[in-house]
């Protein structure tokens, strides 16, 4: 798959909003879970 330019890659053939909206939420979910996991581990160790 050769996109030609970065602009085309972002545009995703007109479906950029749907494709990137999906992957952005994926990043937000995983980053959010990792932040919560780190906070819980820190609290658990402090109170242990």
């Amino acid at each position, binding site marked *: 798959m050769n996109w030609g330019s970065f602009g085309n890659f972002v545009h995703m053939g007109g479906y950029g909003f749907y494709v990137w909206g*999906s992957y952005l*939420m994926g990043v937000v979910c995983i980053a959010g879970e990792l932040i919560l996991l780190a906070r*819980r581990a820190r609290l658990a160790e402090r109170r*242990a």
Partner: protein
Amino acid sequence: MAIDSYRLDGEAGGNWLFRLAAPQAFFPVAGKMIPWFAALAVLFALPGLYLSFFVAPTDFQQGEAYRVIFLHVPAAWMSMFLYVIMACWAALGLILNTRLSGMMASAVAPTGAMFTFLALWTGALWGKPTWGTWWVWDARLTSELILLFLYFGFIALTNAIDDPRRADRAGAVLAIVGVVNIPIIYFSVKWWNTLHQGASVSLTRAPSMATTMLVGMLLMALAAWMYSIAAALWRVRSIILERERDAQWVRELRGVQ
């Protein structure tokens, strides 16, 4: 909890699996496993994303919109796998009365809920350009939404009961009853006339998609598996510390640090 007479190298010994079932034995083992599973997750995700965006061809019907599949299908698979794993740990806890089982069930639940939400979210963003609607009350979408509520119910119920062992047992009953929803989700596209398409990948016939698409999707699914294991192990370590903070071995741990 303070009087915990379990001994790692005791003469009563048993085999290694039973030794690992003790929270204080599992705690350091989980700690050692987390970086390996995290590394594997990255190792699978990088080529998976590369195939998804730079190798897999444009779909002749859906154009580039189909690229949501590389996140949507792994998330949907994990939402179901993790529920079954959670219910198995919960059932094991009910049957064998092992403390670690309930902790594992609780450790899996939030990650399962996260993947269920992600499957619904990516499904909505895929449905809009291909079906013309964000949401429809068909059997596949509705049963997946019920799965999200089952995860929320399990988390809320186990958090609402103060005694952790009682919380585990109550949660286990809910988790086991909820398993009936899993085959409903999986077979919904066969049993009912749904807007959602049928399975593209099945064990009984050749997949109906290009090889590079399939390999990209499977790599992303493996990455999601490895991530889930790492996340659950990280969470269970916190749960062990929270529940056993008065135990002698935790105090010794604190003394060492």
